[in-house]
């Protein structure tokens, strides 16, 4: 059964994506070479910057945390057959919910504030996804358009609040006051210090663990619970869902709200973990990158975590290149990110055929 025999799991999950990543890096290398720099030097700076020292690793995982949240968000909606482009806006609203919770009770009890902030982020993010979801379910309004629109609306809303009611007194930029003392998610390096060893992990904070928990939760929900089963049925075949007694409307709304809640939690990392205030544009396109992350990760939580780390490494390593070589600007790094998404995310089959052929040859030789 050589042909029906599938590639071993490791080839599917690691070898093929790895080859694609190499192809992306190769093309990036050509661009760097064309810009007059040494591709190898840049590559080594990138890897070294992302994984070469404690703080670099910290930053890599810090950025990855954002992508895990937004990638999971995209993927939960996707499994329900919905394309949520609104991660950006949902993250903004999540940040707002978080901030409101912090200012509401921050002075009373930091612990309670952190707890409520997490809930606030999820609740506001979910609520922001509710209207597009409801309109899709009840009125057939295309969720792709409505979520794009809601991104713009969210940013305008945040801009209004941050130069109005929530503005930092005396501030010049759209940002809120600092969170009250002690209202933050602990940095992991402090946690490590408490446990008795030092590891400088930069801004990496507890939300990274929350993100991993969310990934596990999403995995469990999708493939181990009845709810997840029903969600996937709705995503694949709405007629079959009705046949099986599942309410498509209800599922659409719930799935989008879970998606929005996950996107909303991105603020935990950026705001409650690091910036300790609400910034007007803290989402910085992470919501959009989440789409690429989700698909690169084949819409599986493990894949999403891996893809997030790749992107985290690109963000962090890319910054390190910028520190050292001024001709490789942030733009060049953005280009490399685009190429990685293209090769590793969109060209799943690029090396599949050659690799399968190679495997078949090996199998046949063994069989003979």
């Amino acid at each position: 059964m050589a042909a029906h025999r599938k590639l071993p799991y490791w080839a599917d999950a690691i070898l093929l994506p790895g080859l694609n990543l190499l192809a992306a890096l190769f093309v990036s290398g050509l661009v760097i070479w064309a810009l007059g720099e040494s591709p190898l030097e840049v590559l080594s700076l990138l890897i070294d910057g992302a994984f070469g020292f404690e703080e670099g690793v910290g930053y890599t995982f810090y950025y990855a945390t954002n992508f895990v949240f937004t990638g999971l968000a995209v993927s939960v909606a996707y499994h329900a057959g919905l394309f949520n482009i609104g991660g950006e806006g949902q993250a903004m609203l999540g940040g707002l919910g978080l901030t409101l919770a912090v200012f509401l009770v921050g002075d009373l009890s930091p612990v309670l504030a952190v707890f409520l902030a997490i809930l606030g982020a999820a609740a506001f993010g979910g609520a922001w996804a509710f209207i597009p979801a409801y309109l899709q379910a009840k009125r057939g309004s295309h969720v792709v358009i409505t979520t794009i629109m809601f991104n713009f609306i969210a940013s305008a809303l945040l801009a209004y609040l941050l130069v109005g009611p929530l503005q930092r007194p005396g501030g010049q930029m759209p940002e809120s006051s600092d969170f009250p003392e002690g209202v933050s998610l602990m940095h992991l390096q402090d946690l490590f210090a408490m446990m008795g060893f030092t590891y400088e992990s930069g801004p990496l904070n507890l939300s990274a663990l929350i993100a991993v928990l969310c990934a596990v939760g999403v995995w469990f929900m999708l493939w181990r619970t009845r709810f997840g089963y029903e969600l996937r049925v709705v995503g694949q075949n709405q007629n079959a869902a009705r046949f099986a007694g599942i309410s498509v409307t209800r599922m659409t709304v719930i799935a989008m709200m879970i998606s929005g809640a996950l996107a909303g939690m991105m603020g935990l990392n950026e705001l409650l973990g690091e910036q300790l205030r609400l910034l007007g544009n803290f989402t910085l396109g992470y919501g959009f990158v989440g789409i690429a992350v989700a698909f690169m990760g084949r819409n599986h939580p493990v894949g999403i975590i891996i893809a997030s780390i790749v992107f985290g490494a690109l963000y962090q390593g890319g910054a390190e290149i910028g520190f050292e070589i001024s001709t490789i600007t942030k733009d060049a790094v953005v280009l490399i990110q685009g190429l990685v998404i293209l090769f590793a995310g969109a060209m799943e089959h690029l090396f599949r055929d050659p690799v399968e052929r190679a495997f078949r040859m090996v199998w046949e030789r063994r069989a003979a």
Partner: protein
Amino acid sequence: ADFTPVLLYDIGGKFDKSFNEAAYVGAERFKDETGHGYKDFEPNSETQYEQALRRFARRKADLIIAVGVGYSVAVKNVASKYPDVKFTVIDAIIDLPNVQSITFKENEGSFLVGMVAAMKTESNTIGFLGGMDIPLIRRFERGYRQGAEYVKGDLTFIENYVGTTPSAWNDPIKASEMARSQYARGADIIFSAAGPSGLGSIQAAKDTGNLAIGVDSNQNHVAPGFVLTSMLKRVDLAVYGAMSAAEAGEWAPGHTVMGLAEGGVDFALDEHNADLFTDEMKAKLEEARAKIISGEIVVADVEGSNSGH
């Protein structure tokens, strides 16, 4: 080792045709004049502000200049951890013994270009175009308006903001559309404080045969004859000054405000717009400049001003 200062831009990036670019110009001048190199970095996100500061602080940079109000919190955090490293922050005020803060009185410069606009307008309607509606930009608007009203009492103002996302600073098409609309509604001069989007406003001035006022850097050359003047914010001087002072060992912490008196803000007059100015106008402007410097005219600021004190 060789003296190597570090220059950190804000998210707008090195060539924003605005104050980041001015900072770059100042650093280049320092490099040309002294032969000392410098390092610079363009961050992608707020998180990288602190990351960059830490990185260079840890390596004991000779001087770290951070450009932009966005750096406030990051500089505060890092500077307190590295008390023996010198920081200069532009557009923000940090009260620490190893930090020098430099801010500008944009409202004073705006006052002067507001006067120019009022003196030049024939329709008695002038416009303002901001990138985002944020306090920083409102200060430009406030000064502009006051300056114009100082000259003429009965002016009509039209005011627009481009957007609410970061792309508001990079949307010349929308800016140009808004400027066209203002011109069509009777404005004949528009002052835009919108970063690169402002180029769209200049374009619209050219296309409709009206006048625009540039911002931050001298933009008179962009469309000679159509740019009435530019409101200069001399971040280049600030950067050059800080670097030179540090090299000479004269760098000192504390807060410096650069207004008209210090030459930190101004309006641009050069060969591209000389024809648009009459001697009478120049005289009036110089008079006002003197009055502002002497304190006879107080240019108002918006709440949240950081240049006062």
